[in-house]
């Protein structure tokens, strides 16, 4: 304890130097906390967007359909039965289910044509699972049984559509023949999910089924649970109760590429932290060497009095830990302030990308808010101290190994 006390007192010798070195650590922590906060915020928003607008918590589909789902196939569809829906409703945490039918559409405005995804939605149930209706910015949702459609403002802008216009949806039926829907645009939505805004057209499920000639078949059931953490065990449990050709998939399965990307991003954040803290470590090494040089006579005295090398090293490590703690506290405070500002104002992605929807692969747009995780603060605080201590070892050993006579008569 005495040596630790002495180490901490040594920090007061050159207060400015201590503060500057600690500030390097503090900035490293600030950058990490902000980056991590942004990542947490983006992850949280992305996951919510996927759940609320794309997949729900669970999806039940035929295994063969799931494999090819990105192709929007019209084979391996589900023939909904009361028995299957009863099974789904018995899932732990079940809140609601809805049926959806995805199919490939070429959207035509008379001049241009764009490939988009047509989504037939069960209008009586869809809002219990998804939150699309919350994002209608103009007009309304379609009516059941009608040829009314809604699309994203971005897509409408691209195709020069407005509410009240008619859009021709060209598609192939199950029998591979062409058919069209002359859909009246009754609503425009602007969700925080950019790909939904840009390439999806929603219409009543019955209309889609009728024009695709597939009776009442659907692509999948989407299910809302009470919480997203229940999705993975619920998917496993429900899959066991379903027929062998069916499977329940959690939202994480639906967003597998995003989850992988986030894991990569996480590694990227750790690499950033490692680089910044390496720079901070150089600062610590510099400080310890300077301290040792300034205190050479004192070190000689300590060795003359019988202080062992390891005790001298511990003293320097204690000082470095002190710098790490000061830097850590400053960094955490700066991080909290930074994240608070970030959370109050958010970052407007549209403003940053001059009105564009640049998403860097994330299913989100609009204003992004940072996330908080106490574990990130604890991690980076401890990491900063550990790096400080580790980076002090070699210069401290260099100082501790000095010949006592040379150290005493340093000047």
């Amino acid at each position, binding site marked *: 304890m*005495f*040596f630790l006390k*002495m180490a901490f*007192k*040594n920090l*007061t*010798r050159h207060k400015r130097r201590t503060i500057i070195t600690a500030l390097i650590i503090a900035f490293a922590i600030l950058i990490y906390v902000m980056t991590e906060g942004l990542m947490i915020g983006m992850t949280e928003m992305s996951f919510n967007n996927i759940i609320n607008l794309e997949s729900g918590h669970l999806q039940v589909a035929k295994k063969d359909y799931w494999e090819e789902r990105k192709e929007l196939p019209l084979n391996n569809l589900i023939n909904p039965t009361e028995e299957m829906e009863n099974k789904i409703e018995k899932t732990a945490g079940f809140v609601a289910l809805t049926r959806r039918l995805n199919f490939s559409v070429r959207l035509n405005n008379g001049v241009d044509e764009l490939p988009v995804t047509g989504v037939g939605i069960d209008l009586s149930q869809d809002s219990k699972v998804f939150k699309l209706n919350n994002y209608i910015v103009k007009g309304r949702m379609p009516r059941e049984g009608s040829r009314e459609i809604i699309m994203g403002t971005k897509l409408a802008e691209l195709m020069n559509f407005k509410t009240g216009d008619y859009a021709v949806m060209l598609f192939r039926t199950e029998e591979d023949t062409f058919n069209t829907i002359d859909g009246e645009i009754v609503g425009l939505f602007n969700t925080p999910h950019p790909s939904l805004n840009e390439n999806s057209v929603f219409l009543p499920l019955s209309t889609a089924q009728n024009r695709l000639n597939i009776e009442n078949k659907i692509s999948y059931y989407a299910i809302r649970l009470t919480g997203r953490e229940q999705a993975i065990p619920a998917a496993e449990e429900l899959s066991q109760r379903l027929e062998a050709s069916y499977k329940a998939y959690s939202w994480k399965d639906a967003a597998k590429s995003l989850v992988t990307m986030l894991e990569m991003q996480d590694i990227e954040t750790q690499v950033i932290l490692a680089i910044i803290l390496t720079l901070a470590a150089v600062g610590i090494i510099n400080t310890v060497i300077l301290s040792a040089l300034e205190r050479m*006579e*004192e070190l*000689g*005295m300590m*060795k*003359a*009095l*019988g*202080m*062992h*090398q390891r005790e001298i090293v511990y003293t320097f490590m204690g000082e470095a830990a002190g710098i790490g703690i000061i830097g850590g506290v400053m960094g955490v405070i700066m991080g909290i302030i930074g994240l608070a500002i970030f959370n109050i104002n958010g970052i407007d992605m549209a403003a940053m990308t001059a009105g564009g929807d640049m998403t860097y692969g994330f299913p989100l747009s609009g204003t992004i808010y940072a996330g908080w995780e106490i574990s990130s603060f604890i991690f980076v605080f401890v990491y900063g101290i550990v790096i400080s201590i580790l980076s002090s070892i070699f210069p401290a050993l260099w100082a501790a190994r000095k010949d*006592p*006579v040379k150290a*005493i*008569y340093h000047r």
Partner: protein
Amino acid sequence: MSLIKLIGLEKIYQQGKIAVPALRGIDLEIESGEFTTIFGPSRSGKTTLLNMIGCLDKSTAGEIIFDEHSINDLNSKELAEVRRYNLGFIFQSYNLIPVLTAFENVEFAIRLIDKHSKKERRDRVMSLLEEVGLGEMADRRPNELSGGQKQRVAVARALIKEPKLVLADEPTANLDSETSKEVLELMQEMNEELNTTFIFSTHDPQVMDYARRLIEIKDGKITKDQRRD
């Protein structure tokens, strides 16, 4: 019984390709409780001899017997142990730790041997500081003390662990004559009171007046060894 016995002690420093002899066959015995001065001109080998006796440096040839144990074959860790428990040092430039108070500077030395309770430690440090006349200044940092007061703290630091031997390298070189006298009287008093052996190097005649044994060294050899009553 001798506390220190030096037999044919030699020390040669290598400066590039040139060998510079600092000590050339020193034979010396110092008894427990002696108050000895090693004197001589600059670069005569005083400090080198003191460093050898203080287990800070290793000899090139010869043998050093400390308290009946040869220290020639000890490694640096073992030498540190000998210094830790048996030796006290007083330096010309005090070498106090500036961020610690007078009390803590003295406490630092006793902490290294760590065989006392907190209360016992505190009492010992305070009583020694009072003995050196700094009881009232225990909470002052070195920059708040005069040169003489700093050297008194250094004396207290050297004596706190009741070492068998205290080595002082030019202890009064940075002090004025009046303060030097006070510090020397203090060391003499401690020598008599605690029977601690003192060896100090100097070329100050005033210091020599206090010594009971005078050893002169020139060109790395003892040229005079005189005891006084």
